[in-house]
């Protein structure tokens, strides 16, 4: 045991390539970048502070707000406008109208992509929220609530690429008669079934990809809803109990109406995340076996297959799907600000 443990340490110390020199220079570069950035910000603040009284407020305002706004304008707004433009033109910039969108909405592969995206959006938010809410209610004020929460919340912290490998391993397939190394296939065998190629057989493979995202998002729903549940006044529950309401009835007539706001936030947040889902599909199937979704297809077309116009059209479709949620959220924000 001792010898196997020391091998990596020895290799670490005696590496013959320039790993450490390389790592050092990269980290040094990062440190220099941070120092320069903070020095520039500091200096600008210093000079803005010394600016002549007249116009000082304006100079300071510009200093505070301009860097962020310039970055957002050049890195998000302007590119978004260009993407929209690119989606209605061809390579040379001549107007092609909705040709690219026609491809998106008629091509058979594209229709599968759209169908998959709709399935994702229909299942993930509802499933994650339902499981998260149930779990939050079950463990509310129980012994070990903290630990139980951490366990379900933990997938939120890790990358979707990591999660994809974790679940890829769960789904691993070995032919019938061999020892299974994927846990889910082992469960199938234990139950008397035959092993299944989870990721290769449409249309069910999409559901097995969706399961991975539900696994990730449930923790988010649970934590937010749990905090909301704790805000339900005890008096309401007491009054309901006196009226003879069971736990189940109190849940629907007291808890759910009270946490309605939090439920909406959770559902919309997860819906947006689901629309943009990319990493899981990319890592687990690469979009093969009819599992592609809009975000993955957009990447493939624009950066792998040399079809930036189709990619742009897909990005615009994604944007249009998000618009209702943006409008809703901006409205809520406006109301919230007016109250204050």
């Amino acid at each position, binding site marked *: 045991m001792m010898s196997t*443990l020391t091998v990596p340490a020895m290799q670490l110390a005696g590496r013959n390539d320039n*790993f450490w020199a390389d790592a050092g220079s990269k*980290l040094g570069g990062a440190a220099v*970048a*941070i120092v320069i*950035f903070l020095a520039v910000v500091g200096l600008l603040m210093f000079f803005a*502070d010394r600016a002549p009284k007249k116009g000082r407020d304006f100079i300071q*305002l510009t*200093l*505070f*707000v301009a860097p962020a706004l310039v*970055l*957002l304008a050049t*890195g*998000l707004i302007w590119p*978004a406008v260009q993407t929209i433009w*690119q989606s209605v033109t061809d390579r040379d910039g001549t107007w092609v109208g909705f040709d690219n969108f026609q491809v998106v909405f008629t091509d058979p592969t594209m229709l599968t992509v759209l169908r998959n995206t709709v399935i994702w959006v229909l299942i993930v938010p509802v499933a994650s929220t339902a499981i998260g809410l*149930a779990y939050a209610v079950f*463990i*509310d*004020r*129980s012994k070990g*609530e*903290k630990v*139980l929460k951490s366990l*379900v919340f*933990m997938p939120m912290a*890790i990358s*979707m*690429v*990591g999660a994809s*490998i*974790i679940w890829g*391993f*769960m789904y*691993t397939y070995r032919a019938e008669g061999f020892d299974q*190394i994927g*846990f889910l296939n*082992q469960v199938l065998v234990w139950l008397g079934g035959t092993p299944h190629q989870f990721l290769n057989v449409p249309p069910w493979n999409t559901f097995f990809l969706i399961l991975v995202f539900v696994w990730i998002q*449930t923790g988010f729903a649970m934590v*937010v809803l*749990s905090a*909301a549940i704790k*805000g339900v006044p*005890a008096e309401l529950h007491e009054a309901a109990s006196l009226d003879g309401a069971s736990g189940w009835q*109190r*849940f629907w007539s007291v*808890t759910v109406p009270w946490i309605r706001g*939090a439920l909406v*936030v*959770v559902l919309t947040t997860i819906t947006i995340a689901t629309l*943009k889902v*990319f990493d899981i599909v990319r890592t687990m199937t690469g979009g093969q076996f009819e599992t592609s979704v809009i*975000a993955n297809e*957009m990447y493939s077309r*624009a950066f792998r297959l040399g079809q*930036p116009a189709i990619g742009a059209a897909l*990005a615009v479709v*994604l*944007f249009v799907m998000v618009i209702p949620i943006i409008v809703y959220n901006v409205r809520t924000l406006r109301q919230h600000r007016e109250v204050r």
Partner: protein
Amino acid sequence: MSTPTPPRTELDADLGGIEAAEEPKAKRVKKRLTSRGATAAAIVIAILWTIPTFGLAISSFRPEREVKTTGWWTIFENWGWTLDNYNTILFESGASSASLGSYFVNSFVITIPTTIFVLALALMAAYAFAWIPFRGASWLFVMVFALQIVPLQMALIPLLRIFNYDWIDISGTFAAVWVAHTIFGLPLAIFLLHNFISEIPRDVMEAAKVDGSSHTQTFTRIVLPLSVPAIASLAIFQFLWVWNDLLVALVFSGGTVKTAPLTQRLAEFAGDRGSDWQLLTAAAFVSIIVPLIVFFSLQRYFVRGLLAGSTKG
């Protein structure tokens, strides 16, 4: 009080929300909806949610032959542990090896500066939106808020083109990844910090103004120190978000060992060596270990940030 109640730790209260801690204990017990059945269901969910990561962790320490022929749940019958998998994926060099060691460094080189850039710029903008009255402030703020929902996909191709301009030409360098991540992180950061900074009592800010403080002085002497909790929460978010990202890395890092992060290499490796589970499990574990450490040690800030972001929207 006759009913014994489970002791609540500090972290427990944090995770559970502040309101709960203020109620009398007797009421809390009455309010409980839980029953034996519910507890059992909760434990089942908790186990289901933990099994996949647990199996991965176990497998990453098993020898190749065992991983490839037996399930990790048979570890007691097929006993055997090794660190070879980690040695191979981290340090072995060669064309088909993972060389995750270098990518691990890259992930830090990408993540740490980005987190600082976003926080600094967002703090300044959030302060301006909250406390410097100017025309169009409200409209601009709503615009920034709406931007956080715009899909990244909208910006990828044109931004890459900008990075390729002759006079910028940072495509495929760390600078490109830093700038892209900073831009994409700003909307949410500005929104969250604005929520926090605008809650600073007006009296405090007025007092500073009466003392003759300029905006830069108020910002550095009052706003920054008071915002430390919000900064901590957001720093964790930003760190995890950038560390775990794949899309931005794929598009802007150039995909080589010079600049690409762990996630990028891991996704590629899963494609190339998809059946070498002893290596893949170890590689995945290397990529999730840093987020897990951050998560378990700073969970309370993480949760606080999450709640601030989702309940005030």
